[in-house]
C-alpha cells in the first residue's frame, strides 16, 4: 500500500481511517471537498447584506470555522489513505471539473482555513477599529472570498479552474490589503494587482499552451497525455510561463518586490492571514505543476528545478534575511523574512528528492504557523503602539509581557529552535540537503547562516521591545488585558501554543507532508 | 460575392485606423472609432452570411447598440471635461 521511500513509523502514529470512523455521523462526507469551497463562497454574498457591524464579522468567522472543521475532517480522512475526488455536476473527469483532496491539498487546506479562522477570530476589534463601519460588510465579504479562492485552488484538479479561483483569491486579497489605514496601502496594492495579474496571465498562457498540445485541462489527464509531446517547444515554453507566473504569485526572489509593501501596509490582521497562506497557495500550484504535470515533459526535470530555481532559492534566502536585518519597520522586516522562508520551501523542492519535498511541504505548514503568529502579535502591538516601526514598539514587552512572550515563541519557531514547529522543517531540510552530496553541504551552510540571520532580525525586535524606551515600566503591566483585545490575545496564544504543540506532537502534518512528497515524486499513496 | 464588400470594409477599416492613429484632434479619433464601429457591424453582417449562419445577426445587433453607447460615453466625457474646465476658469477668476 505505502510505497517505498516513505519514512516509516513504528505504529505510534497512525490515524483511524477517517472515512470509516466518520461516515455514520457525516452523511455528506462525499460532498466535503465541494462543501469546503461552498461554505465560504455562499456565505460571502450573505455577509454583504448583513449590516449591523458585528454580524458580518460573526458570520464570516462562523463560515471560516466551519471551513476549518471541514478541513480537519478531510485531513483525517485522507491521511494515509486514498485521495477524495469529487466530480462537479457528476460529469466524468477530463470533461467535467474534478475536485481532488489528497494529502498535499489537505495540509494546505488546514493551513488556509486555520489561518483564516484564527485571524478572523482574533481580528474583530482590530479590524473594527481600522475600518469604517459602513465598509465592514464589504471587507468581511472580501475576506471570505479570499478564503474561497485559496480553498478553491487547493481542492481543484483542473488547471483552468485553478486560474479562476486564483483570480478570486487575488482580487479579494487586493481588497483585503487596500483596507490598510495608510495611503501607501493603495500604491502597494496597485503594484500587487499589476504583478499578480501578470502572474496569473502568464499562468493562463502556460496552461493554454499545454492545453494546445494535450487537449485537456484536467491535471491528471494532462500528466498522462503530456508524455506524447514531451520536449516540444510549446510545452517547454509553457513550463517557463507557468513557472514564472506562479513564481510571481508566490513572491519567489527576485519576483517578490510586490510583497513587502503589500504586507506592510495592509491591515495587520489581513497581513497575518495573507502571510500565512497567500504565497503558499501559489507555491502549491507550482509544485503540483512542476512535479506532477510537467515532469514527463522535461526529461531533464531535475535540471529544470535545480538549475534554475535553486540559485534563486538560495539568493532569496540570503537576500531576504539580509534585508530583514536592516529593516526598521517590523512588518516589512517580517515580510522580507517571508521572502527568505519561501526560499526555504523552494530550496527543499529544488532538491527534487522525497526528503527535500517533504521538508518544503512541512515548512509550508510550519512557516504559516510561525509567520501568522508573528503578524498577529504585531497586530496586538499596534493596538497600543502608533505604528509597527521598531522605535515605536520600543519597550512594549514591559507593557504586554504575555503577548510579547508569544512573539518570542513564534520568533523562535521562525528561527527553527527545537521544541517549536519551525525546527522540524529545518531539521528535514538540513537532512535532505545532507543527502544531496557535496553541494548539499554548501546548502546546509546557507540554511544555517540564514538561521543565524533570522536570530539577528528576530532579536533586534526582541531587544527593542524589551529594552528601548517609550513604554512605561512594570507598573503598567496590569493594563495588558485592557490594551490588547481579549480575542486577539487568545488568538495570539492559540497560534503560539500551536507552534509549541506542533514542535513536539507533529504527527499529522508530518504524515501529510510525507505522503504529499511521495505523491509529488510520482509514487502513488 | 460578399468578398468584395468584405474586402472594401476591411480596407476602409484600415484607413479609419490610420486616421485614429494620426489624429490630430481627439475628435478625429472619436470619429474614426465611430466609423470603425459601423464598419465592424457591416463586416460581421457580411461574414455571417458568408459563413451561412444568418442567425448570428443577433450579435451584429448588439454591436450596433454597444457602439452607440460607446459614443455616448465619449460625449459624456467631453461634457464633463468642459464642465471641469469651466469650473477651473471660474475658480481662477475668483482668485
Amino acid at each position: 500500500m505505502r510505497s517505498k521511500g516513505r519514512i516509516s513509523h513504528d505504529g505510534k502514529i497512525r490515524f483511524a481511517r477517517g472515512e470509516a470512523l466518520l461516515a455514520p455521523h457525516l452523511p455528506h462526507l462525499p460532498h466535503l471537498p465541494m462543501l469546503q469551497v461552498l461554505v465560504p463562497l455562499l456565505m460571502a454574498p450573505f455577509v454583504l447584506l448583513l449590516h449591523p457591524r458585528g454580524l458580518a464579522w460573526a458570520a464570516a468567522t462562523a463560515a471560516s470555522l466551519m471551513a476549518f472543521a471541514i478541513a480537519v475532517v478531510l485531513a483525517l480522512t485522507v491521511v494515509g489513505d486514498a485521495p477524495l475526488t469529487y466530480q462537479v455536476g457528476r460529469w466524468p473527469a477530463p470533461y467535467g471539473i474534478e475536485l481532488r483532496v489528497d494529502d498535499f491539498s489537505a495540509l494546505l487546506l488546514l493551513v488556509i482555513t486555520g489561518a483564516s479562522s484564527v485571524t478572523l477570530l482574533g481580528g474583530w476589534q482590530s479590524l473594527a477599529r481600522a475600518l469604517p463601519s459602513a465598509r465592514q460588510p464589504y471587507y468581511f465579504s472580501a475576506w471570505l472570498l479570499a478564503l474561497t479562492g485559496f480553498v478553491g485552488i487547493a481542492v481543484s484538479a483542473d488547471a483552468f479552474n485553478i486560474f479562476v479561483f486564483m483570480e478570486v483569491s487575488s482580487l479579494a486579497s487586493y481588497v483585503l490589503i487596500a483596507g490598510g489605514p495608510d495611503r501607501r496601502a493603495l500604491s502597494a496594492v496597485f503594484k500587487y494587482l499589476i504583478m499578480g495579474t501578470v502572474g496569473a496571465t502568464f499562468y493562463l498562457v502556460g496552461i493554454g499552451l499545454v492545453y494546445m498540445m494535450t487537449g485537456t485541462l484536467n491535471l491528471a489527464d494532462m500528466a498522462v497525455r503530456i508524455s506524447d509531446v514531451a520536449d516540444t517547444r510549446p510545452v517547454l515554453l509553457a513550463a517557463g510561463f507557468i513557472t514564472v507566473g506562479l513564481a510571481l504569485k508566490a513572491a519567489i526572489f527576485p519576483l517578490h518586490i510586490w510583497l513587502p509593501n503589500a504586507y506592510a501596509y495592509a491591515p495587520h490582521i489581513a497581513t497575518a492571514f495573507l502571510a500565512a497562506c497567500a504565497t503558499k497557495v501559489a507555491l502549491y500550484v507550482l509544485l503540483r505543476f512542476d512535479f506532477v504535470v510537467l515532469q514527463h515533459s522535461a526529461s531533464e526535470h531535475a535540471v529544470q528545478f535545480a538549475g534554475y530555481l535553486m540559485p534563486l532559492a538560495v539568493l532569496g534566502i540570503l537576500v531576504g534575511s539580509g534585508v530583514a536585518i536592516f529593516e526598521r519597520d517590523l512588518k516589512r522586516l517580517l515580510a522580507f523574512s517571508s521572502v527568505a522562508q519561501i526560499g526555504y520551501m523552494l530550496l527543499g523542492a529544488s532538491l527534487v528528492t522525497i526528503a527535500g519535498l517533504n521538508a518544503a511541504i512541512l515548512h509550508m505548514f510550519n512557516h504559516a504557523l510561525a509567520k501568522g503568529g508573528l503578524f498577529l502579535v504585531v497586530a496586538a502591538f499596534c493596538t497600543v503602539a502608533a505604528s509597527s516601526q521598531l522605535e515605536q514598539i520600543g519597550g512594549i514587552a514591559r507593557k504586554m509581557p504575555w503577548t510579547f512572550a508569544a512573539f518570542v515563541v513564534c520568533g523562535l519557531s521562525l528561527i527553527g529552535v527545537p521544541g517549536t514547529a519551525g525546527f522540524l522543517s529545518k531539521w528535514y531540510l538540513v537532512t535532505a540537503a545532507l543527502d544531496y552530496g557535496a553541494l548539499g553541504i554548501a546548502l546546509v551552510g546557507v540554511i544555517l547562516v540564514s538561521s543565524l540571520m533570522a536570530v539577528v532580525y528576530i532579536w533586534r525586535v526582541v531587544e527593542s521591545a524589551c529594552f528601548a524606551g517609550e513604554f512605561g515600566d512594570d507598573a503598567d503591566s496590569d493594563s495588558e488585558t485592557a490594551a490588547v483585545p481579549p480575542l486577539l490575545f487568545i488568538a495570539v496564544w492559540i497560534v503560539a501554543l500551536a507552534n509549541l504543540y506542533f514542535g513536539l506532537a507533529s504527527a499529522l502534518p508530518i504524515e501529510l507532508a510525507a505522503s504529499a512528497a511521495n505523491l509529488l515524486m510520482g509514487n502513488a499513496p | 460575392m460578399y468578398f468584395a464588400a468584405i474586402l472594401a470594409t476591411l480596407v476602409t477599416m484600415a484607413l479609419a485606423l490610420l486616421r485614429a492613429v494620426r489624429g490630430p484632434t481627439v475628435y478625429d479619433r472619436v470619429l474614426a472609432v465611430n466609423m470603425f464601429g459601423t464598419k465592424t457591424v457591416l463586416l460581421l453582417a457580411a461574414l455571417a452570411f458568408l459563413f451561412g449562419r444568418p442567425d448570428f445577426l443577433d450579435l451584429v445587433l448588439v454591436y450596433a447598440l454597444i457602439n452607440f453607447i460607446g459614443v455616448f460615453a465619449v460625449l459624456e466625457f467631453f461634457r464633463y471635461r468642459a464642465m471641469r474646465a469651466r469650473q477651473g476658469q471660474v475658480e481662477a477668476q475668483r482668485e
Partner: protein
Amino acid sequence: MMDIAIDIASWVLLALGGVNLLIGGIGVLRMPDLYTRMHAASLTDSMGAILVILGIMLQAGLSLATVKLGVILVFLLLTSPTAANALAASALLAGVTPRTGQSLHLSDSEARE
C-alpha cells in the same frame, strides 16, 4: 431567372456599397480638417451601410434574417448621424473651428493640438 436577377442586383448593391465605404475611408484620411472628414465619414457611412445591407437582404430573401438586417439598418441610420452630429457639436463647443477659404490649403500639422 429571378434568382440570377436578384444575385446581380445584390452584387451591384454590395459592390456599390463597398465603393462607397472606400470613398468614405479615403475621404476620412485625405480631407484637411475635422469637419470635412466628418462629412466624408458620415455620409458614406450611411450610404454604404444602406447599400451593403440591402445587398445582403436581397440574398437573404424573406426571412427572420431580413427583419434583423432591417433593424440593424435602422439602428445604424439612427445612431451614426446622431453620433456625428453630437461629435461635431462638442468639437465646436470645445473650440475646434472649421476651416474656410484659404486655410483649407494649409497643412494638417497646423491643426494639431
